């Protein structure tokens, strides 16, 4: 079954063509990130405008790469939320128009769940597993029971991990998006004499919740004292974020008696996170799986993959449905 997936929840217009939820046939991503860089973050109206102009070129490129025509697609999938409402509306409207034009099923998928299904493009997902979604907008830990069945175990109580990296990058005068800039600079530092605080929340009912908001204050204080130590400070920031994510994920892995961790989201491209999480998980017999770095950021292929597994469950999106935001997952 060939599914064309559309992702437009933020500043990337992504279109992917995936066969049977497993085999990537074509993928195209047109990003307006460079336009947002001078504002230090995504400007919703600007992102929405760019989606309108990018949606057909992105579809043409993905179909061309797949070597198929639009009529070869058996269904269409789209990110229904959460995300920027104006941006989501473009993708959802385009997907509904395709479903109407070709009389094909339409499947709406959750953005975070789609990120997790980027792992299905590497190998079949084996359940049950722990799922760690880490991006600029979200940071959450789930127990992944099966297709479409996620149970929220922990969530950030303030900033997302990627947001902490973005804010840190801004403090250090680096560009947007901050995650890759922090990673590059941290790598150049080697070791660091600095330690930033890893939040330890006292929430017995929610032991896997996370917090990153204290990092920016601590980082800003150190940067004022050591303005010429930005590489070492970037290293310290990355270590604090990675330590927080790793410890909570491994605690959940052990407590839930699981053996697999599926990593997803833009921050999952961070090599230090991948390495450290794999090291710590292996101490408890766990193994870490992650999508190809190119598939870690927002893309249409992950939406097409997620759409396939939801289609198998009989899920379809009605023509009268719109974007959903906020859109809790696994609660």
């Amino acid at each position, binding site marked *: 079954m060939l599914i064309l997936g559309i992702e437009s929840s933020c500043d990337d217009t992504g279109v992917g063509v995936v066969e049977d939820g497993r085999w990537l046939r074509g993928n195209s991503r047109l990003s307006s990130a460079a336009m947002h860089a001078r504002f230090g973050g995504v*400007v919703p*109206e600007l992102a929405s405008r760019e989606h309108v102009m990018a949606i057909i070129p992105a579809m043409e490129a993905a179909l061309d790469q797949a070597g198929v025509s639009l009529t070869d697609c058996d269904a269409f999938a789209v990110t229904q939320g959460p995300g920027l409402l104006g941006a989501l509306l473009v993708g959802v409207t385009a997907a509904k*128009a395709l479903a109407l034009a070709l009389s094909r099923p339409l499947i709406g998928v959750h953005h975070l769940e789609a990120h997790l299904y980027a792992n299905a493009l590497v190998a079949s997902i084996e359940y049950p597993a722990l799922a760690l979604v880490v991006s600029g907008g979200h940071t959450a830990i789930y127990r992944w029971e099966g297709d479409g069945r996620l149970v929220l175990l922990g969530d950030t109580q303030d900033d997302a991990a990627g947001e902490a990296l973005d804010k840190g990058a801004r403090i250090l005068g680096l560009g947007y998006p901050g995650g890759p800039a922090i990673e590059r600079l941290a790598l150049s530092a080697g070791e660091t004499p600095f330690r930033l605080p890893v939040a330890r929340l006292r929430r017995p009912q929610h032991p896997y919740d996370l917090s990153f908001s204290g990092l920016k204050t601590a980082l800003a204080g150190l940067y004022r004292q050591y303005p010429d130590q930005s590489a070492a400070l970037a290293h310290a920031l990355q270590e604090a974020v990675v330590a927080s994510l790793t410890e909570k994920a491994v605690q959940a892995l052990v407590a839930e008696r699981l053996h697999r961790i599926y990593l997803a989201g833009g921050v999952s491209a961070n090599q230090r996170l991948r390495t450290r999480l794999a090291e710590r998980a292996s101490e408890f017999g766990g193994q870490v799986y992650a999508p190809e770095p190119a598939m870690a950021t927002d893309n249409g292929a992950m939406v097409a993959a997620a759409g396939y597994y939801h289609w198998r469950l009989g899920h379809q999106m009605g023509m009268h449905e719109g974007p959903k935001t906020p859109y809790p997952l696994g609660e």
Partner: protein
Amino acid sequence: MIFGIDASGPGLAVGVVDDAPCRRVLADWYWLRPRTAGTHLTVWLETLSQQFGRPEALAVGIGPGSFTGVRIAVTAAKVLAWAWGIPVQGVSSLSAWAYGAPVGEKVLVTSERRGAAFYGGYYLRETDGPKPLMPDFPVDGALPAPFPVTGSVAVIGALADDPAWLERVGAHAYGLTEVPLLGSAVARIADFAAPIDAVRLTPAYLKAPGTRGSGSRDESNGQ
């Protein structure tokens, strides 16, 4: 047969006209309720295409007006035209409003207001449709030249029932409060002599995007 779409104003409009020279109206649906395009536009198009079959062309109001409404209408039109392989043409949404003015009259079309901010379009309603007397323009407090005008001018839209604004339009300005059926109007005035490539079909925003504050993923105001 041509389908016409407009979602730039306070409601959603879809019309169907035939391809006779006069473009006879076969259907005209209008719902005077904001923010209905996202949920109802494709449903209406589905129902109308089941009733009348696939159209030979699509016409769409490209604004100016509600950024979100215009975007939904333009996205639906361009993707449908691309998928069906049919021509698509964009027209000024304000010119579709001007279609409702009496023939021979000059007409000032005014979009929904946000305080003193709105969009205006100044047209002459000729027999074969509205002709622009100047490009559509954004207003934020004051009308541009040539207003106030001395001659008779019909005012359609948000200012039509506002005496203070009518006075600023001109001494002989009068309001037309009837909302025209915009779906068929868009389909009737669209000129398909040189249809635009669906990829290049662009909303007429007339204003730069607001850059105040960056968005979070839970940002909910898409207007």
